[in-house]
């Protein structure tokens, strides 16, 4: 036994084993998380729109993402007769691969990251540009008018907003002085401040550009259903469609991750250097126990025994997690991960909130906003930041 453990330990010390493990974990778990982000979106949407949202599959619709996934996977695999089948097949793959590859440098916590390079941020930006290719090719290869219009819109929109996005990031980078995702977070700890307070304008520009970059409302022109049906993925169905869907939600998480890393202190808890606030470290355990308590309360209120068991089981899982998190070594380990995911959750919530509040921009207005406002503002922000840094 001890021999076995020793072998495992020696394997873990090899340079590529841990990253491979993390890759497997992320690829296995992320589609599930994306599914639950969709559920979250539907629930929040329902709340905003005075409805209940999915309620049938599992207690409070908690198993809905699984049902949706099964439905999408079992659908017939359709390729339109006039489509360019090779590109049609390749396009969603490019999108989803590009989106997932970006995870390789996302710093989920101080230990849970696949790799950290000295050009991390640049790497994410360039990889997400490749993702646009998937959308363009998808629209082009469908050989149909609406997808073509959708792809044209996406190309113009994403290419022009990428400029604003890049310039906004530069503002943050000038303060951080590094491109490595881990180092950016550490820089915020050392400087005792989240960079959003140094670069509020850059953060706002980044937020708007990120929304446009991920085709989220109010910038969802490429898939404006009331105008061009479903845009670039009009002809896609079943599994291929779900790949696009996965790519879209992955991109949301990625842009949120960049925002968090660059502006919101990454995996740091609020006020990481203030010692009397150390009790905040217990937040992960408290949050889990709170969710458990709410699940138990919900179980009591449910009327059907299936739902009671479901909610009760969920509560038990979260209660166990909460108790586990109370152990000091575990607590330290999950600390960064918890704060990072919490921030992702809050930003995604913001995305959803905005989506269901605003009407959609028109294509030309969107371009105008990008080129006339965001890019000049971002450049001005860089210049001002530079001047201030030189003077101080």
């Amino acid at each position, binding site marked *: 036994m001890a021999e076995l453990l020793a072998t495992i330990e020696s394997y873990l010390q090899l340079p590529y084993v841990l990253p491979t493990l993390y890759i497997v974990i992320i690829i296995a778990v992320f589609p599930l998380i994306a599914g639950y982000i969709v559920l979250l979106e539907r629930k929040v949407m329902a709340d905003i729109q005075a409805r209940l949202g999915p309620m049938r599959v599992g207690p409070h619709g908690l198993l809905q993402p699984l049902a949706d996934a099964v439905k999408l996977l079992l659908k017939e695999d359709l390729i339109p007769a006039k489509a360019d089948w090779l590109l049609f097949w390749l396009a969603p793959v490019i999108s989803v691969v590009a989106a997932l590859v970006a995870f390789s440098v996302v710093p989920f916590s101080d230990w849970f990251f696949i790799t950290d390079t000295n050009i991390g941020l640049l790497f994410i930006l360039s990889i997400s540009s490749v993702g646009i290719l998937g959308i363009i090719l998808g629209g082009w290869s469908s050989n149909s008018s609406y997808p073509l219009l959708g792809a044209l819109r996406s190309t113009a929109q994403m290419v022009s907003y990428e400029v604003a996005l890049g310039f906004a990031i530069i503002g943050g980078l000038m303060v951080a002085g590094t491109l490595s995702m881990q180092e950016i977070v550490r820089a915020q700890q050392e400087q005792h401040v989240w960079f959003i307070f140094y670069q509020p304008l850059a953060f706002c520009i980044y937020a708007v550009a990120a929304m446009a970059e991920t085709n989220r409302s109010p910038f969802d022109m490429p898939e404006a259903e*009331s105008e061009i049906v479903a845009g670039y993925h009009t002809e896609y169905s079943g599994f291929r469609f779900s790949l696009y869907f996965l790519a879209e939600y992955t991109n949301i998480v990625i842009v949120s991750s960049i925002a968090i890393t660059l502006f919101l202190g990454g995996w740091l808890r609020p006020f990481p250097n203030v010692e009397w606030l150390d009790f905040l470290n217990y937040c992960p355990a408290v949050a889990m126990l709170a969710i458990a308590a709410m699940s138990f309360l919900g179980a009591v209120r449910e009327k059907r025994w299936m739902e009671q068991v479901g909610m009760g089981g969920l509560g038990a899982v979260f209660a166990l997690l909460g108790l586990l998190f109370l152990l000091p070594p575990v607590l330290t380990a999950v600390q960064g991960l918890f704060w990072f995911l919490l921030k992702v959750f809050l930003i995604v919530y913001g995305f959803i909130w905005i989506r269901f509040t605003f009407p959609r921009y028109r294509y030309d207005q969107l371009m105008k906003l990008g080129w006339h406002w965001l890019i000049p503002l971002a450049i001005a922000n860089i210049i001002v930041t530079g001047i201030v840094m030189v003077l101080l």
Partner: protein
Amino acid sequence: MPDKTFLDTNEIVINMGPQHPSTHGVLRVILKLDGEKVLGTECIIGYLHRGVEKIAENRTYTMFNPYVDRMDYVAAVSNGLGYCEAVEKLLNVQAPPRAQYVRTILTELNRISSHLLWLGTHALDIGAITPLFYTFREREEVLKIFEAYCGARLTTHAFRIGGLQYETYDGFEEQVKAFCNIFPAKLGEYEALLTGNRIWLGRTKGVGVLNTAEAIDLGVTGPVLRASGLKWDIRKAQPYAAYEEFDFDIPVGENGDTFDRYVVRMEEMRQSLRIIEQAVGRIPEGPVMAKVPKIIKPPAGEVYHSIEAPKGELGYFVVSDGSTQPYRVRIRPPSFVNLQALDRMVRGHLVADVVAIIGTIDIVLGEVDR
């Protein structure tokens, strides 16, 4: 005609509809596009044609009454009112005052429900998803009143030739008053979401402009005409039902763009509420049905009667040859006439504006095709 080579990609022709999320039914618009710019349109209608006018010739006057509900199914009460009044004119009878009041209240409630449906779908077309659910929530309250009154929610068949079939139910006035109390706050809620929103303004201001002269030339009526600046409302110009007895204003726009049409309709809902509030407090006592023979046999002759439906002037031209069945019924549907302004309004705009403009005309294909 330049030869169609691979590189000749200047213009594309796309088919919007008949299955398209924002053509409000089965309208088919063929768009000629230069990139995203619309060069021209052609409307193809008739997918919902049921020959309503021809059916009228094979039914008695009473039997045809429910059919008119199926034209503008969003405003069935108005349709019924127009038909009943046209036949009453032909018969030379007058509905009793109590019936007139109830008719006015129900028709104005119907105007509100129709405008609510327009607002929800119009906002949805422009990308605001949420107002739809709010407007349907309030529309539900109106439909509940209809349901309690006559058992039906959509195709109500609420009126009969000569008055009403049913007395109002117990609690009718209270329910209508309760709706009048909650509704202004809800209107404010919609306006908070849309009116001042920069994106909404950007999407509607200056889009689909129709000036007064063009509006008159095209024969458009209703809110579309009023938004173009002409103060023309049949409720005031040729009063029918009990409208003469109430105070209300006719909202008009200035620029004739999509935003003005939005503002005019929002204000119309407020004015409808004003009419209802005035009417509900003083519904006169008395019978609800005039003396109308069991078998309706109007004297030979013809009559044209029009009312201000939520979407514009709804006219019925009824010809009688003295038998129990109409010789001819010709209907002037507001949606059909207003729809012809579409081409004029979208030329030079973008694809995104096409859906905004279709929404702002507020068409119902059941009425366009009949």
